[in-house]
């Protein structure tokens, strides 16, 4: 049952991802990205990680894509079928294939032949314990990374004095 749902959702994600890069309209592209991310959230749910799933919706769908849309409105994303295409398609294809190759190789090498058993849902409780007792340093580094992003944005957007 879970595998059937996984197959369907994965197929939908792949379809949306292909449409995302082939569509001519930037905002439609953002909508397909939305579908990809929502599909990923459903996959997290299937892996019994409900907190991560809803965080995916909150942060990626609720914030990152909104930021993307703001960026599109900031630049030229005219309505209609005006073609906004760059001449770097082959290069982009090479880069994305390389990324796909690297990540899939890593995943393959790490989990080859392993069966991961999910026994019970991952609760927020276990997650919180893990972050705040084992992974304290990465957690604090996250705040520094966020601070860097924030300062960068302020420097970019600030009016010249």
């Amino acid at each position: 049952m879970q595998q059937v749902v996984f197959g369907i959702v994965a197929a939908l994600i792949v379809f949306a991802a292909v449409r995302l890069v082939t569509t001519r309209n930037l905002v439609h592209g953002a909508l397909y990205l939305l579908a990809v991310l929502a599909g990923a959230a459903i996959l997290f749910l299937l892996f019994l990680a409900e907190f991560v799933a809803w965080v995916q919706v909150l942060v990626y769908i609720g914030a990152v894509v909104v930021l993307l849309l703001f960026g599109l409105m900031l630049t030229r994303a005219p309505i209609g079928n005006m073609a906004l295409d760059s001449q770097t398609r082959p290069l982009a294809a090479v880069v994305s294939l390389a990324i796909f190759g690297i990540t899939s190789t890593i995943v393959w090498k790490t989990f080859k032949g392993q069966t991961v058993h999910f026994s019970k849902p991952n609760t927020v409780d276990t997650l919180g314990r893990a972050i705040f007792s084992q992974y304290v340093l990465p957690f604090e580094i996250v705040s520094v990374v966020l601070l860097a992003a924030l300062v960068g944005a302020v420097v970019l957007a600030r009016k010249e004095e």
Partner: protein
Amino acid sequence: MPKGYFGEYLTLAFFAGMMLLLVAGTLGLNKLVSPKVHRDEKYLTYECGVDPVGGGWSQTQIRYYLFGLLFVVFDVEAVFLFPWAVVFDKLGTAAFVEMVIFIGILALGLAYAWRKKVLEWL
């Protein structure tokens, strides 16, 4: 219907499907029962009753993007706060100090943005 984790989410998916049908049904029913009278003027965009001036496009300001970015940063912070709040009383002072450092670093960013006057709209 299975109980437990998958039961609840199956119910949720079921509910979502029905609401999706409802939305589609509302739009569909409207298409069925509404009159259709074609007039070119009807499909113009709003401009106080005269023909629209200029395109339907106007570029937005960079401020919106900045607030979008601030939003992402603080949304990530909030996401870390939720699991922390759940285990707060079980982990004790250490977790509290960790979170104070985390919030402190981000508050520094907010203070910086404030000092650089980007939190002001004008």
